[in-house]
């Protein structure tokens, strides 16, 4: 998994909790990398799962809620770093439709070894869309967080109902029903 996810996660922990909490979970997680993350590197996604679990233990917040919050946070950071992706995109649903065929392709150009998830969109109407997520990583909750982060960035309210699908394990595949209500 790309290093930026890890550095951003640690940033979030330091920002939302504290530097002490960050130190604590790193200590607790006992990671192979020792937590010396750089956005240029690539690390096992097990480490981020491990960190989230530790964060839950330390903070008492549910893992799902943490992942969701991280998703929202991550989207905001992406938007800051890659503002050019948002040019001429009118709304969140339109942006999500671009992710698979545009953004993931750009990612692959920069990092040929990257393996982003498969996203396919089925636009039902102007305000309604089905989004299918499939990955070898169990990050459907992260995807949901990203969706919400996206809606927040566009100042929209999107109702997200998630239907989990078996995939290759829990959290690896899900269908999201998105309805823009405002």
């Amino acid at each position, binding site marked *: 998994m790309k290093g930026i996810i890890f550095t951003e996660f640690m940033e979030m922990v330091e920002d939302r909790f504290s530097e*002490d909490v960050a*130190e604590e979970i790193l200590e607790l997680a006992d990671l192979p990398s*020792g937590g*010396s993350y*750089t*956005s*240029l590197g690539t690390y096992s996604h097990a480490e981020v799962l491990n960190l989230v679990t530790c964060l839950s233990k330390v903070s008492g917040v549910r893992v799902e809620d943490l992942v969701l919050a991280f998703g929202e946070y991550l989207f905001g950071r992406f938007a800051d770093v890659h503002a050019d992706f948002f040019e001429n995109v009118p709304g969140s649903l339109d942006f999500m439709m671009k992710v698979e065929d545009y953004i993931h392709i750009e990612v692959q150009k920069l990092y040929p070894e990257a393996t982003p998830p498969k996203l396919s969109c089925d636009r039902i109407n102007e305000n309604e869309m089905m989004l299918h997520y499939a990955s070898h990583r169990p990050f459907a909750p992260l995807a949901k967080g990203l969706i919400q982060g996206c809606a927040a960035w566009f100042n929209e309210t999107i109702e997200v109902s998630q239907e989990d699908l078996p995939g290759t394990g829990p959290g690896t595949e899900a269908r999201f029903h998105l309805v823009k209500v405002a």
Partner: protein
Amino acid sequence: MDAEAWKKRYQREKKARKAAERIAEDKTREIFYRNQELTVLAESLEEQVKARTSELEQKNVSLKENRDELKKKQAMLQEANKALEEKALELEKVSQYKSEFLANVSHELRTPLNSLMILATLLLENSDGNLTEEDLHSISIIYNNANELLEIIEDILDMSKAEAGELSVHEEDLRLSDIRLSLKDQFHPLAMEKKLNFSIECADDLPEWVHTDRKRLKQVLKNLISNAFKFTPEEGNVVLSISKSVWNTDDQYTSEGLRFDVIDTGIGIPKEKQETIFQMFKQADGSTSRQYGGTGLGLAISRKLAHLMGGDLRLESEVDQGSTFSLVLPPEALLTDEPLDHLDHVENEFFLDGGKEEEKSFDNETILLVDDDLRNSFALSCLLQKQGLNVVLAEDGSQAMEMLNEDASVDLVLMDLMMPTMDGYEALGQIRSRVDLRMLPVVMLTASAAPEDERKCRAAGADDYLSKPVETSLLLDHLKRWLGH
């Protein structure tokens, strides 16, 4: 956070920085190598381009060479083409000259033959009674040979036309009796010479007028009868039978057509030769030692002509029994253009075969005979005078006009077409332009074989048109009509 934690944090960050630096270095190195690779690739591409360019240049040169060669070849072809075109033009000219030459020769041959035949006819009549049987026989041979020559000329002319696809038919209304008279005239002497019984039998229900090509019909019948004569031994019979016959049209309908049967009691033609004889230059007996002469053109042309007239030429024959050649003409041959006009001419004459001369049937009328060929003038005037006509002679159109100015008593003009000083057309024009001569009957007489000449003559105001050599009884028949007998 205590100092220990800060130290850890510092160590971790340092480690992360080093990892990042290492990754960046690796990337840089990778980029360097990539760059090197790209340079090599670019160089090799450049070399490839160079090689390709020189290759293309070389190809270009060879293409140019090819093009130049092609151009040269093209020029050569054009030249050859031009030469061929010139040759074709030349050939066309030669062919045209040949046709003209043939036409001229035919004309030049017809004129003397005409006088020869007319004079022979006159002599055969033996009106002074001073010729021996032997003399008469010789004269009939002269006549028949002249006639044969004429047919050969016509066959050769027709063959050259058939080869050039120029054989054409010119259909018109004509009197059946004209055909009958001219055939009788022509073949009676021959029948006497060959000691054959020749007769023409006409069915009762035949019309007076028929509609077909006069010249071609006569030509086919002449050919058939000559053949019958040639292949029938002495004391044999040759009959021309004219009748109406059933004509089967393409659908189931039947109609009436005209049929001419030439029936002989000759040597006959074996089954396997019955088609061959209709081919050009082919005869039933084609060997050099053959018993019977001929050019082998007659039947081929005859059949072609029969087809051109819309009809057919058929043969039924049995060896040693005889042959029947049947010329059948389509129902159109019985449809005349202007039936009412012809009512004036309806005659109910009985035709007597056997060459008995008719009584003098003219009443001292004066004929102005215009012809530059003195032999012809002589022969014709002998014939006409014998029939009780006055004949005055003129050598060309201008002389004829002078005579018409001096002597108003001319009843009919009989004029040649081709003459020096003033030709027949011009003289005809002058005659028709004069009020007092407007009604004077003018009969054109010419050796020309061209069908358009008749049209031109009639358009210029000729009352009648006869082509040389003219058969005696046909000429008299026509003159009688114009002089009101």
